[in-house]
């Protein structure tokens, strides 16, 4: 099951991009959680998760977004989400994430949102 989920990190100015690939379930969520924790520990709070290559998410994956969003926003940053495939987007919407998270179409618009509203989203 080695390569069925991965997080790839890159930076663009003060923004950290985390690109997810594969499926994010209760088995792989700890990897994603560790990746976000590492950014926070390093003081990086302008985070964009690019989910273009993410094919599946369960509530364990959503839990990572939930668990960190307050902390990141309190520190003046945000955890924005972009590139969701329709079937994955549906799960976010079903649970009301669209009202509480800043979900953008792509990296460009997510990046642009950081200059508009530096301390986060629609909350």
């Amino acid at each position, binding site marked *: *099951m080695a390569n*069925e989920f991965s997080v790839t990190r890159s930076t663009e100015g003060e923004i950290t991009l985390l690109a997810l690939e594969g*499926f994010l*379930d*209760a*088995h792989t969520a700890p990897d994603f*959680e560790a990746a976000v924790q590492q950014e926070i520990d390093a003081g990086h709070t302008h985070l964009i998760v690019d989910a273009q290559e993410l094919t*599946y998410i*369960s*509530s*364990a994956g*959503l*839990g*990572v977004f*939930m*668990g960190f*969003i*307050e*902390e990141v926003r309190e520190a003046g940053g945000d955890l924005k989400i972009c590139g969701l495939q329709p*079937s994955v987007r*549906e*799960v976010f919407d*079903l*649970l*009301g*994430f669209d*009202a*509480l998270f800043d979900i953008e179409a792509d990296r460009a618009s997510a990046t642009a949102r950081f200059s508009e509203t530096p301390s986060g989203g629609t909350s």
Partner: protein
Amino acid sequence: MKTLEQSFSLHVPSSTQNLVMIREFIGRVGEQAGLADGDRNKLELAVDEACCNVIEHAYGNDARKEVTVRAHFDADLLRISVIDTGVGFEPSAVEQPELGELIRQRRHGGLGMRLIQKLMDEVRYEIEPGKKNELTMVKRVRPSE
């Protein structure tokens, strides 16, 4: 296409490693039952959530325990049961705070049961702690009108 009744079952160790196998199994069952792609995705997610709860809560991540997934369908209905022999719980007593509240509490979970409810047409728990706890979920194969 299929009108014959069919039954399937899968037994796996209680570990999140086996969620992929469970989803593949359920996806194939859904395919044979004649579910559309969208409904099949929902089914896989609901069963994943049900099994995660068993693995984490019913068995406390003890991989020596076993999770059972049963499926049965005819032309109209697909019924899936997820069965454990773990601690059990009182489903009606589980509080389900809103997402905003969970976020304020910095919770990393608490969405599984409501997700199952939203994804399936019928959901029923039968709990006998330590003996047999069964979560039965129904998906209609054809829209009823």
